[in-house]
């Protein structure tokens, strides 16, 4: 079980022109199961683009991507969505929470696309909140939490479906050092539990906590 990108290209059209920009150029990367990988690089290097492709949010323009032995090119939108839902947990820099809903509802969401009874879903979600140490916040509105708390809600939500892969895009970017440390600790704990973790980061402390670090430059992995 692994993620394998081979000679991947991704291009974006530039607004108002017929030109395009290559955000990824001939990227090949293999991520082994159970690995904890950091992706570093300057702003605009293509880190997020790469993470979106890894996370099946976006598709490649050229090259191939093999997800746990499945050719992603052959998946339709529904199958890709199902894989996102069940195999992948996303953690974003700005948390990606639905602000005017409760913490518990936010964590329940990924499970609500399936047919698990809502009662059961709430139980699982509450357990995950306990796991990241914020069980007591379950009934609060997401909007009133601090950044560190929000990010832990996001992690709980990423975990709720029991995914194999946790993909994080600058998870500590909006946090102070204390909170960043907490997030790093949680990520390491998840890594020990056997999750495969990919973190895009500028933060050396985060990168140092990872088993492997790759550095992107101008859309390439040198």
């Amino acid at each position, binding site marked *: 079980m692994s993620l394998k990108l081979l000679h991947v290209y991704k291009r974006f059209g530039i607004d108002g022109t017929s030109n395009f920009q290559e955000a990824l150029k001939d990227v090949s990367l293999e991520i082994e199961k159970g690995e904890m990988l950091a992706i570093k690089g300057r702003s605009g290097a293509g880190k*997020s683009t790469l993470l*979106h492709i890894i*996370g099946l*949010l*976006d598709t490649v323009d050229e090259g191939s991507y093999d997800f746990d032995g499945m050719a992603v090119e052959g998946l339709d*939108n*529904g199958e*890709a*969505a*199902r*894989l*996102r*839902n*069940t195999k*992948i947990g*996303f953690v*974003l820099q*700005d948390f*990606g*929470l*639905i602000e*005017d*809903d409760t913490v518990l*509802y936010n964590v329940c*969401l*990924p*499970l*609500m*696309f*399936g*047919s*698990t009874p*809502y009662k059961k*879903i709430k139980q699982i979600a509450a357990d995950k909140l306990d796991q990241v140490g914020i069980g007591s916040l379950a009934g609060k509105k997401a909007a009133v939490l601090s950044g560190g708390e929000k990010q832990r809600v996001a992690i709980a*939500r990423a975990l709720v*479906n029991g995914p194999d892969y946790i993909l994080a*895009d600058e998870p500590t970017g909006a946090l102070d050092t204390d909170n960043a440390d907490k997030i790093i600790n949680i990520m390491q704990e998840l890594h020990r539990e056997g999750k495969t973790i990919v973190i895009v980061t500028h933060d050396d402390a985060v990168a140092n906590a990872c088993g492997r670090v790759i550095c992107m430059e101008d859309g390439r992995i040198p």
Partner: protein
Amino acid sequence: MNRIRIAWRLITRRKWTVFLLAVEIILSSVVLLGMAGRLIFIKDAIQITETFQGEDAYYFTPRSYYSPDFEVESYISPRLREKYEKSEIHTVEYEKKDGAFLNAMVYDDFLIDHVEIAMEAGVWFTEYEGEAVPAVVIGGGCGAGEYIELKNGQSCLVIGVISRDTYVAAFEQSASSGMASLENLVASNVGYDIIVPCAGSRYGSIRGGLAEERQPSEIFVIKDKGAARALQEELLQYGDISSIDEMKQNYAADNRDFGITNGIIALVFLVLTMVGIGGLNGIQSLKNAKIYAVLYILGLSRRKCMILEAINTFTVIGVSFLVFLLVDDKIAPLITPVRSGKIYGWMYGGIVLYFALIYLLTSFSSIRTAARCDVIELYRKEKE
């Protein structure tokens, strides 16, 4: 079940926008229905101008100081008497078998042959070939194919039905020349229940009417063109007379103007509702777009996001429209000026479709924006 929960949250999250939308839908439905009704009304009204096609006919009303029994033909010069035919409408009251009274307008063959009336069901006399005495019912009460039994043992067969607000020839008003329009000759919402052929008609007739009266006006159809001028001049001494052709032209022009004015008002209103409802819905679904971006990341496909938005949309339309149907009776009397027209069942359906269209276009275009570009980029822009 869980998905319905998500859809429900989407709706309740924006309860104020949804509330405003619902109010707007309800009010728009009321007004749009009125507008549609009015336009249809005009269309029906214009149909009656097909009446008296190609006839050299004059509409005559004796001056009001003559008695109702005044017979102008007894005053007309003998040399003109053979040059015209006359058509008039009588009103008769019949007693039905069950004791109720039936107010009838009695048309002669000329009227039956020349009047064009928009039928709601069944046929006009000219298309009837049966043996029984035919009748056309105004405003329902009984349907085509039924018999109306009279107390005196006679009966007539209902061959057609016209709606209460349809224009029929009534000969009630006088027509002063120059200004006259068909409007003087026809009337809608007349106080009669039925139209029947007159005695001696080739369609057969019912006898034994109780109170019989003649409508104030009548039509003179000139058979000999050369006599037209002389006859007009003589008739003018006893009352108002105008050419039916002129009346038709005036009427058509009035209706055209009325139609154009109403068409423009309806159009303006359509645009207003489109902007109002579309805009409000656009705003709320733009707000939802960020949520859809989150749902997409969490593993809901774009198609399912759209289905969710469709459920969201149709719940709002559906519930608002149900509320509208419930309060329609109560609102309608308050706004009679815009509700004077003909309202058919299909108009309600049309309005629902119209709203659904506005909704779907504004909702889906924003989800499509969410789905087409990089969702996370969009998500970030929303955030800023």
